[in-house]
């Protein structure tokens, strides 16, 4: 066993580690293994995206059929926001051509974790072309002057 191990070159060991790392990365990048809907709460999970600029974090969500006046964005703690909106008309599996499942959906709901410190009380929202934009200003640090 020891002899066998000694025979492997450093490159082989490195390659094995790289393969292992690749496999882990693949696992992490794999899409979530849960559905994008929840029958219990009658909610659909919208597509969401987060981008970070020097000044703000922008969370967007695609909300087709959403009633604009029902859109709510709530800060849940300092690094989590919850987005919800009612859908103009109930959508059932049957509307999507699926006959082997039962259930209807009346709203969108999703949560987005904010990866950097932000000021949730200064949050601004915009809804255009069915896309919700949540702008969260990033917390400012202390300015240090060059002596």
């Amino acid at each position: 066993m020891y002899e066998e191990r000694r025979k492997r070159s450093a490159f082989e060991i490195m390659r094995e580690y790289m393969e292992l790392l690749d496999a882990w990365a693949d696992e992490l990048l794999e899409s979530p293994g849960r559905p994008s809907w929840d029958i219990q709460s009658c909610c659909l999970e919208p597509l969401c995206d987060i981008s970070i600029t020097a000044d703000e974090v922008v969370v967007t969500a695609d909300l087709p059929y959403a009633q604009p006046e029902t859109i709510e964005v709530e800060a849940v703690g300092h690094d989590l926001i919850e987005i919800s909106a009612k859908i103009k008309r109930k959508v059932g599996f049957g509307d999507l051509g699926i006959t082997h499942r039962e259930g209807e959906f009346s709203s969108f709901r999703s949560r987005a974790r904010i990866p950097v410190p932000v000021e949730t009380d200064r949050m601004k929202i915009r809804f255009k072309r069915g896309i919700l934009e949540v702008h969260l200003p990033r917390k400012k640090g202390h300015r240090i002057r060059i002596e």
Partner: protein
Amino acid sequence: MSEAVRIVEKKRIPSEAIMLQGLPDVGLVGLIATSYIISELNLDEIAYVDSDLLPPIVVLHKGLPHAPLRIYGNKDLIAAISEIAVPVKALHRIMRKLVDWAESKNVKMILSMGGLPVQNRQDIKEPKVFAAGSSDDSLKLLREKGLEILNEGFIVGPQALTMRYCVERKLTAVALLAQSFFNYPDPEASAVAIKKFAQITGKKVDVADLLEKGEEIRLRARDIMRRTQSELSQMKKSQEYDLPLYV
């Protein structure tokens, strides 16, 4: 050893046709546009792609099983679409096979529609379409048809591979890139891409129904968009935002 990618023909394949490719990509622009053209022009399923590199999936439509990556056609048009996000690891071999197969069928031109991600997409009412061509002749044709050429930049993903393999084989490839959302299905971008497809090929496709069904398509396309997002990040799709350096 069996072939990694096989195209199984179910019906007679037309010769000297134009081939459309609409694989899931940015904003699902190409997939939505190509699927809509298939439906509007009543193309028949004529072949499918079989590969051990694809996940073990079958799609049921009207109770019958179908391969997720299928090829449709009529007498002068062929269209390839995929109902699943194509895994990055399989992409090179699948695109090479599609180009090889197109060459064997004397395809006149491979035309693919796709999205050009722009950050301010919400503020754009009518997305612009840019075109890329595989040769000087194809660029000339695109200019004659009034298309704006994408002069500098990166194309990443299925369209990039088609372009590369077509250059190798001296086949004509054209990519139409409509300004679109990166991560969200964009039927409006698909509609403007279809208009340019019609301008190039002379085929008439009315996009009114596509625009009317925009919200429904966005709702239905959430799952394939989610799966595609994962593949896009693996293929470093965001490199399309990069500025190329060529001194």
